[in-house]
């Protein structure tokens, strides 16, 4: 059992120390993941700080962050390991005289000729690492199976070498934007954490921490406007990072109080679809708002 964190409350504080404002759910699950030695599957809308969570945890634990960015067509050779063919070929040519094949074959399938890719690297590292498997929903269903062995047993099997077991148990984060349903097998091996848009108080705190020179009053207004916008049915709701961008813009423009005009002029930072912008502006200008 690893004990990176002493308890949930102190973990929350440590995270806040590196400017990541978590809540009970987030800190609780990270704490459990450490205790149970299980990976965390983080799901939620884009731009709610899923990747940032992994980065922040690596920062507070002082561990190296190893990142595997997933994409369609990712395969074993790019995720796990690959034999260095060119080097193997050179080795064979260099020793072509006299030596028995058995010796060479034993030789060319050794560590020296193995190119480690992120997953294997995380397993074989001596120092503590945080492994981040980003946007795991982008790989095909079949490729997911690649991850299963490493997620449940923290080991990688290489036919020519045998099984490589982890020297230390890395803290693993998988993120997903939920564009497709992940397989049951993968979910079963992970702790599940859903990160949603923060509530008003937390969003305000985030704005205050991340945007220098912002007044508390303005941060409060920003959080309120964003909350109102998120209640409208839109194609894409403003993410936390967009909220931060908007807050920074308002600070740069020297705005002290958000009125309708400022909102209209800068709303394109929060919303990226023209239809959304039109709808939000129309909606915000009516005092009644949407019926609850």
């Amino acid at each position, binding site marked *: 059992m690893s004990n990176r964190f002493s308890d949930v409350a102190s973990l929350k504080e440590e995270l806040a120390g590196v400017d990541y404002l978590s809540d009970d759910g987030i800190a609780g*699950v990270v704490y459990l993941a450490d205790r149970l030695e299980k990976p965390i599957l983080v799901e939620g809308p884009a731009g709610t700080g899923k990747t940032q969570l992994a980065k922040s945890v690596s920062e507070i634990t002082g561990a190296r962050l190893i990142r595997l960015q997933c994409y369609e067509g990712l395969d074993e050779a790019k995720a796990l390991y690959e034999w260095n063919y060119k080097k193997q070929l050179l080795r064979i040519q260099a020793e072509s005289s006299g030596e028995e094949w058995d010796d060479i074959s034993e030789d060319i399938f050794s560590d020296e000729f193995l190119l480690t890719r992120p997953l294997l690297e995380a397993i074989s590292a001596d120092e503590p690492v945080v492994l981040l498997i980003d946007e795991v929903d982008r790989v095909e269903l079949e490729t997911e199976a690649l991850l299963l062995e490493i997620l449940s047993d923290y080991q990688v099997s290489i036919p020519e070498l045998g099984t490589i077991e982890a020297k230390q148990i890395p803290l693993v984060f998988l993120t997903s934007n939920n564009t497709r349903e992940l397989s049951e097998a993968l979910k079963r091996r992970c702790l599940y954490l859903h990160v949603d848009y923060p509530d008003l108080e937390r969003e305000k705190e985030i704005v205050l921490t991340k945007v220098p020179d912002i007044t508390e009053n303005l941060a409060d207004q920003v959080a309120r406007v964003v909350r109102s916008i998120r209640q409208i049915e839109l194609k894409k709701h403003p993410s936390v990072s967009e909220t931060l961008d908007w807050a920074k813009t308002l600070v740069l423009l020297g705005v002290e109080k958000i009125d309708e005009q400022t909102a209209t002029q800068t709303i394109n930072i929060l919303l990226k679809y023209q239809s959304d912008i039109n709808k939000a502006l129309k909606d915000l200008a009516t*005092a009644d708002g949407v019926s609850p």
Partner: protein
Amino acid sequence: MSVTESAGFDETVAMQEGIGDPILDLLNGFIVQLRSAGLPVSLTENLDAMEAVKHVPLGDRQTFKYALAATLVKHHNHWKAFETVFEVYFSLRGDEFSIGDDTLELPEMDDDEQQGEQTSGDQQGGGGDNLSPEELAEMLYRSLMRGDQQMMRGVARQAVKRYAGMEPGRPVGGTYYLYRTLRNLDLDGVLERLLEQEQNEEGDAPSDFEQRLQRDEYQSRIDSLQQEIEAEIRRRLVADRGVEAMAKTLRKPLPEDVDFMHASREEMASLRKAIYPLTRKLAARLQRKRRHGRKGPLDFRRTVRASLSYGGVPAEPKFRNPRPHKPEIFVIADISGSVAAFARFTLHLVYAISGQFSKVRAFVFIDGLDEVTHMFEGVEDINEAVHRVNTEADVVWVDGHSDYGHALQVFWEKYGKEIGPRTSIMILGDARNNYHASESWIIKAMHEKARAVHWLNPEPNSYWDTGDSIVGEYAQHCDGTFEVRNLRQLEGFVEHLA
């Protein structure tokens, strides 16, 4: 795995490991409840949960809840169901939630903010029992004004006690009590009063924009008050009737089991969000078939080229890539009154599908038929498109009662020629034909020309071919007829299709 069996199994596992704590018994009971609510909890997840609770302080309700959620709930749509079961099951456990001391004190107010009318409440030592209705209303108003969570909880408890009229053993559901409580509190009136108060304080009249923000703020406070009231009612009901009975009454279908025809507005909204991943899945499945499908014919030129590296021996035959399969989809949907709710949903589905496939054509009918493909093109707001379909499409021929026969005839005359061997046709409707002619030969003819014809019926299987439903007559010419009443069944259809 049936519930009773699996529960027995889990218990044996716990025994074998030599742990018989009361907390594990408790957890087992909880998991049985989760399973009967329909959540898929596997054995490993069960074990994980047992391991997890060892590491969290049991006194901390919130952390305990998150620990269970992280190990047992792997799907965001299931969170609500989990939360309900959790709140019911653990409602009477934990100190602050015990029901024994019935007169929960309303928190004392700060003296400096205290107004004259409030002092009477103070004198009663915060018992709150002797407050007049006006005083309670005033208290409610103040708690909302300040957004004081603690005070709101107190008000909620007091209000439920006073207004809900709960009596032990009364066979009514929680909604009835909720309605009674809310009616007495008149929250809409309170909201207006809060807003007026705000305006008076501001002096000059605020713009619509500011008013809007204010309203949202108060609305969210009122929502949280309402949640407190619901929790309080639930707590009392559980105390009265016991955990099992309550868990059963409060059980709601999981999002994937919600019937399209009877979905409420919120359920509809969550269904819409769920469709998108489903169409991705559909597209991904079809694409995969394209990529990993049967190899094409031998490619002579590339085989010879590859043979050079084996000294001219064609040791490695090369094949042409198979021709990419570009599916064409025709969706023909009934939008008459009998399936209106389902029709709205299918239009959303059509919209979502058209984003994933290059060629999707949509037709709607009642007793006439019209093509609506263009209404979905380049539209960013699906609700607008659906609205246009419902108002602009020319689908009424005589009287606006479903006539499948005539609608199919129109389709066949106008668009029949455009059906090709790559076309998949999906017909959505209940086949309630009002005793008109069926014209099922058209389906047969379609089936001969097209790649596949599927019929999706939003009615339960047992209603098929009763009354004026003639789905059986059409079904004999289709590749498949499916009952599609909820997301789970729709997903089943997608799997079948791909």
